[in-house]
């Protein structure tokens, strides 16, 4: 699948992977900004701005934006993470010009006052929705507890108070600072014509203003190491997260870290599956590697009946201690590898799957990687690479948060109970 790249004079980067046999084309605008780029006064502004992007421009009202996307049958959405805001659409090949026109237009939003005030209510509803989901709530609190003062601990959604306090001008200031051309990557994947695509992007985005890029606060962290219990009487199950450090996104160890996470906590055949799910102790158990710019982390989680939390947490700690001391076996590594290889192949069959892979690789690996590059990277992970991950990023000194009906829970190390 041929790869192409082009840098516009204003610093906006365009990359594409063409695949003439694909049924569709996927398009994305990757803005390299997220919750970690907010000041404390701007808490929640990145995600709120992602919503406001859909509320219109001088050429389109909010309703026009939705109608124009729907008229071309686009499969479209956006998401905000700790460090990226991504707007994406998959369309039939003949509609790619319209999709570029809409996405490029809305990336320069009007941020009208009445839309701003209306959307505030929607954001507060979204916060309320997540508040009612204990597993999500536990994840969010655990992440903040782990990262503490580190900017990766910033809340993506913000709080009802921070959202209420935000002004339209603050959002506009943030937009001008972060949505500059050199901070945006435009990606396409699938069935499309590259020279024509570059012309379209140039026409729509060539005039976007330049500006400084990059971010502060990029550093590794070992996490706070704290142990906290959040009591919620109305919650049925106890939801527990343990977070420990991992390699950053541009580390060559990321492939080993991914496989290690799967061997410990994939939903079938992993250490946690056999320790927790198979005997019926927990109704969910997971361990996965999350990567960010400059830092990474392993998120280990489970939910179980409150009265079994102590026993279950001790078992999880035991699994982590054992892996830390003895690593995983060749057999476990191969098992995880088989699963990942199959997932990579299947994920790459849809242009929207490739869109995300090509975009994220450009951002974090600073270049293009084919599906086969990815497959080879997983194939070449050795047990000594796994060992290196464990040595540099110990699993057994986790930051722990439990959310549920329990008032007290003893830390497996015997410290920090509350």
């Amino acid at each position, binding site marked *: 699948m041929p790869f192409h790249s082009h840098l516009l004079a204003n610093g906006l980067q365009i990359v594409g992977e063409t695949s003439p046999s694909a049924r*569709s084309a996927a398009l994305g605008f990757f803005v390299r900004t997220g919750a970690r780029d907010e000041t404390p006064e701007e808490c929640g502004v990145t995600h709120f701005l992602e919503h406001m992007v859909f509320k219109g421009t001088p050429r389109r009202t909010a309703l026009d934006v*939705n109608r124009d996307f729907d*008229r071309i*049958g686009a499969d479209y959405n956006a998401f905000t993470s700790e460090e990226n805001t991504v707007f994406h659409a998959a369309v*039939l090949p003949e509609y790619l010009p319209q999709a570029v026109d809409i996405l490029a237009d809305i990336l320069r939003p009007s941020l009208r006052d009445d839309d701003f005030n209306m*959307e505030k209510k929607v954001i507060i509803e979204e916060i309320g*929705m997540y508040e009612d989901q204990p597993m999500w709530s536990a994840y969010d609190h655990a992440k903040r507890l782990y990262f503490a003062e580190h900017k990766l601990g910033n809340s993506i959604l913000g709080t009802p108070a921070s959202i209420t306090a935000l002004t339209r001008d603050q959002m506009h200031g943030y937009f001008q600072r972060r949505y500059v051309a050199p901070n945006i990557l435009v990606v396409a994947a699938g069935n499309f014509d590259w020279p024509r695509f570059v012309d379209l992007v140039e026409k729509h985005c060539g005039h976007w203003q330049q500006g400084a890029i990059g971010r502060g606060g990029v550093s590794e962290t070992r996490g706070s190491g704290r142990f906290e219990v959040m009591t919620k009487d109305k919650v*049925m199950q106890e939801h527990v997260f343990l977070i420990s450090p991992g390699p950053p996104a541009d580390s060559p160890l990321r492939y080993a870290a991914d496989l290690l996470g799967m061997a410990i906590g994939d939903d079938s055949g992993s250490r946690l599956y056999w320790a927790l799910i198979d005997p*019926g102790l927990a109704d969910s158990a997971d361990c996965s590697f999350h990567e960010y710019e400059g830092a990474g982390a392993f998120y280990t989680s489970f939910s179980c009946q409150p009265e079994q939390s102590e026993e279950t947490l001790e078992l999880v700690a035991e699994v982590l201690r054992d892996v830390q001391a003895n690593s995983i076996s060749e057999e476990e590594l191969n098992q995880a590898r088989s699963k990942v290889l*199959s997932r990579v192949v299947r994920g790459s069959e849809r242009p929207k799957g490739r869109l995300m892979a090509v975009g994220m690789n450009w951002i974090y690996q600073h270049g293009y990687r084919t599906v086969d590059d990815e497959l080879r990277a997983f194939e070449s992970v050795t047990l000594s690479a796994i060992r290196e991950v464990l040595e540099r990023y110990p699993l057994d000194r986790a930051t722990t948060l439990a959310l549920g009906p329990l008032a007290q829970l003893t830390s497996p190390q015997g410290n920090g109970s509350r």
Partner: protein
Amino acid sequence: MQPQINQHTFANGLTLLAERMEHVRSAAFNFLVPAGCAFDPPDQLGMGTVLADLLTRGAGPRDSRQLTFDLDNLGLDRGEGVGLMHMHLWGATVARNLPAALEIYADILRRPHLPDDELEAVQALAYQDLRSLEDEPRSKVSVTLRKHLYPSPLSNDRRGTAEGIAKITSDAVRRHHQRWFKSDGAILSVAGNIEWQPLRDQIERLFGDWQGSADRTLSFGTQPPRRAHLAKDLEQTQITVAYPSVPIGHPDYYSALGAVYVLSSPGGMSSRLFTEIREKRGLCYTVSAGHDMLKDRANVIAYAGTTNERAQETLDVLLAELCRLQEGIEVEEVERIQAGIKSGLIMQQESTRSRASFLASDWYYLSRVRSHEEIQSAIDGLSPSIILDHLRRYPPGDFVIVTLGPKALKC
């Protein structure tokens, strides 16, 4: 591009469906066995879920660990689900590993060990699954709605009840498996980079001597009350509203679908509920409506989750929008639905899992697989007047309303 679809029903009643997708490297399969939770013994609700979990804890020559290990080494992403009418077992991996995976699934379906000593753990999981529902307000309200929409056993939920789960014994699980896991009425669909003839030969060898049929007649309980409120102290109130529609195969089916899509089209944001309730009023983050279908009946089910203080207004606006449908539909609204369905059908071609599940579902409902052209031409034939005619025959009304939150709403 015309999909290459093959079908064969074996003498024992098992139907094999396959779609060859040359442009992909993977393959997905989907077994539908008519053993959904509607067939759970009334005093052992949750039986289907317990059986589904036990199925993969050892089968044929493999014990539980070996089975998981071998499936993992095939790179198989998999799952077992219990729907109302069917138990479905699906898997997806690279195409070259499909035959080996199907060999193991023949054991899982036909020769599971259903080990006695694992029953207690499986019951504990089923019980926790049931408790977890309390921590998922949207699922909770949706399960409760079905209890008020359908008579038993159509209102059964896969999670069953705590009492039902407790009463399940190893013998009962084995009897349940023997009674419902029969070849007749079972469907296996496969989509991906596969060859039809070798696949058919393999399935004939693995399942050709699978036997039996079951009397699947259901007897229904009484129609439950149409209103309910579940009191719980939450940030948001969960609202669901349902009203009758028609199932696939009915002459009105496509216009019924058109009417639902005017309210809420899959993936689209210009449809009415999103526009009126979220965009114009900021009343919620999530609002949607969908077409919910059994073979002989169907309903439209609408959902909204909203802050408690604004819940009454949300319900009022939602009901008003449902009733306003009959007053008129714009040509533009229908054109947007047509564009969405066209691109959805084509993009489905990029996913082996979507295609495998489409094949099985069409076969269950229609005993045939619809072509893209058939669906597209039915959708292209829609117009505001055709949808409005349908709405005159089936006006939104006679609502079943279920809410979950701190305060009951007026309706």
